[in-house]
């Protein structure tokens, strides 16, 4: 199965649109400091053979629990970290092995928004200068043009002109995230990879920032890769969703299909663990999901289980799951799952 097939048949993808970003068999391994006495080489498999494709204009959600490799994958996708294996194509160009100099003209097209706006903004620089920086780096124009563009960006993300000269600590968390978004938008990117962009925010502010993401996507025809652990947030923003476990995609499907009838037991367990709000509205029509409480813990990505990575905690695991690693394959219902015995076909 190649990344091409995955997109071609996925019903969850929005109609039309070309592939903007394609990852093929991406791996990122971190060698661990080895004990001088034992010769065993230990490797942390943060991302372990991930293939996916993102279409122009869609939002692909990547969801998983801490340590599943979703953030590392995000960094691999925009080549903020070197890949151990596999390749990433952006806008038809293989960026996996581009030199720093050749990568430079590609960078403006793909930007990252980080989780912690506090940590990702230089505390000693004014908000306006922070947003201007990518413009200067990529030689946007003269000083006046840069100033005009920064003011425009502030307006776009809902910040006032008076904010230009303030320092990051003078802003609230939500406003800081708006600065981070303005900085990402500065170079008019096609793709934005957002890594947990709302998880540090209060719920009321989270809703505002999520709406901003939606508005910006509409206005600038942006393509998003939206990484989050919150299943409600991912469902809200995504057209399609990839579920990760131990560095692998275990399921990739259209949002509606995934939440209505998960095919992978891990997706099912994950969804059933979300404490849903019972407000008396949709509780009646939606059948109450059976709660599956997983036992045990996520295995160490240094010592991944043989076969299926989830089999040690899977309530349906059989002998085959320990012997054979399931590949991400298409089920007749138009979704991809890496499971020998998917729950829905």
């Amino acid at each position, binding site marked *: 199965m190649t990344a091409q097939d995955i997109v071609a048949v996925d019903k969850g993808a929005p109609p039309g649109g070309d592939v903007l970003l394609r990852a093929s068999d991406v791996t990122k391994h971190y060698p661990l400091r080895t004990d001088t006495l034992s010769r065993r080489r230990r490797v942390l498999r943060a991302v372990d053979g991930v293939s996916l494709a993102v279409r122009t204009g869609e939002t692909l959600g990547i969801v998983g629990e801490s340590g599943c490799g979703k953030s590392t994958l995000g960094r691999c996708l925009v080549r903020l970290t070197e890949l151990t294996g596999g390749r990433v194509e952006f806008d038809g160009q293989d960026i996996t092995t581009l030199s720093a100099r050749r990568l430079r003209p590609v960078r403006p097209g793909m930007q990252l928004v980080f989780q912690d706006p506090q940590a990702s903004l230089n505390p000693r620089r004014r908000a306006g200068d922070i947003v201007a920086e990518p413009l200067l780096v990529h030689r946007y124009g003269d000083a006046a043009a840069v100033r005009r563009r920064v003011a425009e960006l502030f307006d776009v993300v809902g910040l006032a002109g008076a904010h230009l000269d303030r320092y990051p600590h003078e802003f609230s968390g939500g406003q800081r995230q708006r600065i981070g978004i303005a900085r990402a938008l500065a170079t008019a990117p096609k793709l934005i990879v957002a890594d947990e962009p709302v998880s540090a925010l209060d719920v*009321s502010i989270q*809703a*505002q920032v999520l709406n901003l993401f939606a508005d910006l996507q509409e206005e600038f025809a942006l393509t998003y890769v939206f990484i989050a652990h919150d299943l409600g947030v991912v469902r809200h923003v995504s057209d399609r969703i990839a579920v990760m476990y131990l560095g692998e995609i275990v399921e990739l499907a259209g949002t509606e299909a995934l939440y209505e009838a998960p095919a992978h037991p891990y997706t099912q367990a994950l969804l059933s663990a*979300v404490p849903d709000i019972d407000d008396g509205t949709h509780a009646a029509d939606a059948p109450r999901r059976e709660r599956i*409480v997983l036992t045990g813990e996520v295995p160490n990505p240094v010592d991944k289980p043989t076969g299926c990575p989830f089999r040690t905690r899977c309530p349906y695991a059989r002998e085959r799951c320990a012997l054979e690693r399931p590949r991400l394959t298409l089920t007749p219902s138009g979704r991809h799952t890496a499971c020998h015995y998917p729950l829905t076909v």
Partner: protein
Amino acid sequence: MPEPLPEHLPEPLLDVRDLRVSFRTRRGPVTAVDGLSLSVAPGEVLGVVGESGSGKSVSMLAVLRLLTNPNVTVSGQVLFRGRDLLTLPDKQMRAIRGREIAMVFQDPMTALTPVYTVGWQIAEQIRAHGQVSRKEAHARAVRLLSDVGIPDAASRVNAYPHEFSGGMRQRAVIAMALSCSPALLIADEPTTALDVTVQAQILDLMRELNADGSAMVLITHDMGVISQIADRVLVMYGGRAAEDGPRRAVFHGPRHPYTWGLLDSVPRVGGPRLRRLPTIAGMPVSPGSLPTGCAFAPRCRLSHDRCEERPALAAGNGDAAHRDACWLPPEDRASLRLTARAAASDVQDMDSEAAS
């Protein structure tokens, strides 16, 4: 102004009356909790929900007198089994902490002293509150760890905190909190730092504890968690109670516009998907700049002249246990909610936060 409690409630275990917490800062006094009254009945789970700066954590730290900052002033009454904790001598207060009221904090990664084994730390608490031999305390620590679902407790009891995963650590912290069978457990965001599958395990554990008779105060920002476990809900805003009542009443018929906003702005895992979420305009109020009237009025789409005056927590018509602090006419709330929700989804309200 202490609120009289509705009469049909059983004798409360914890009865907080007109609690005020303020901090002296360089920019003047900051009121973190502003006249909060609440009660917890024996065996009841009270969910306290609110955003950052709502005073939900500070109020519970004040109840246990854990605010050690010398610049803090606490006033009001905290009646626990009839005794006012705020005026109790230090020694008697220590006898209550950990034995009668235990507390579990948000971050299990930093809640345990890194240089002692988990078992040692549990045994320390047991021995602080009773004449128990070292050996007996250790044996009880093993039982407690095993009770909270730590496999192979007999050997894990000798592990250090860093050798536990986050979920296991939170279990250990809970085991420690339970070591003296407290009548009340205060849990401050106990699952916020945990993954969703681990959160489900911890919530199950807490449900079991409650079934065994422990009363609980669960502080969280997550409406879903509250909805799963609380018997009663207290919604806090700006250091005050905005709404309080039985869970079903609050979730099925929320009365305060802030509660509406909290419920509506959370993207759900089920139900219809909206392109834009209904939002609460503006930012959470900062404790340094509480308005004299309704704390939520500056963000409220339905605020009017009356809101300049501070509304008291009062029952609307019908259920006396379901109270809210809002001037809107009680009988119009349901239709007003629909109006507010429609407004919240349509308005391009991103400027409202930026305006401040």
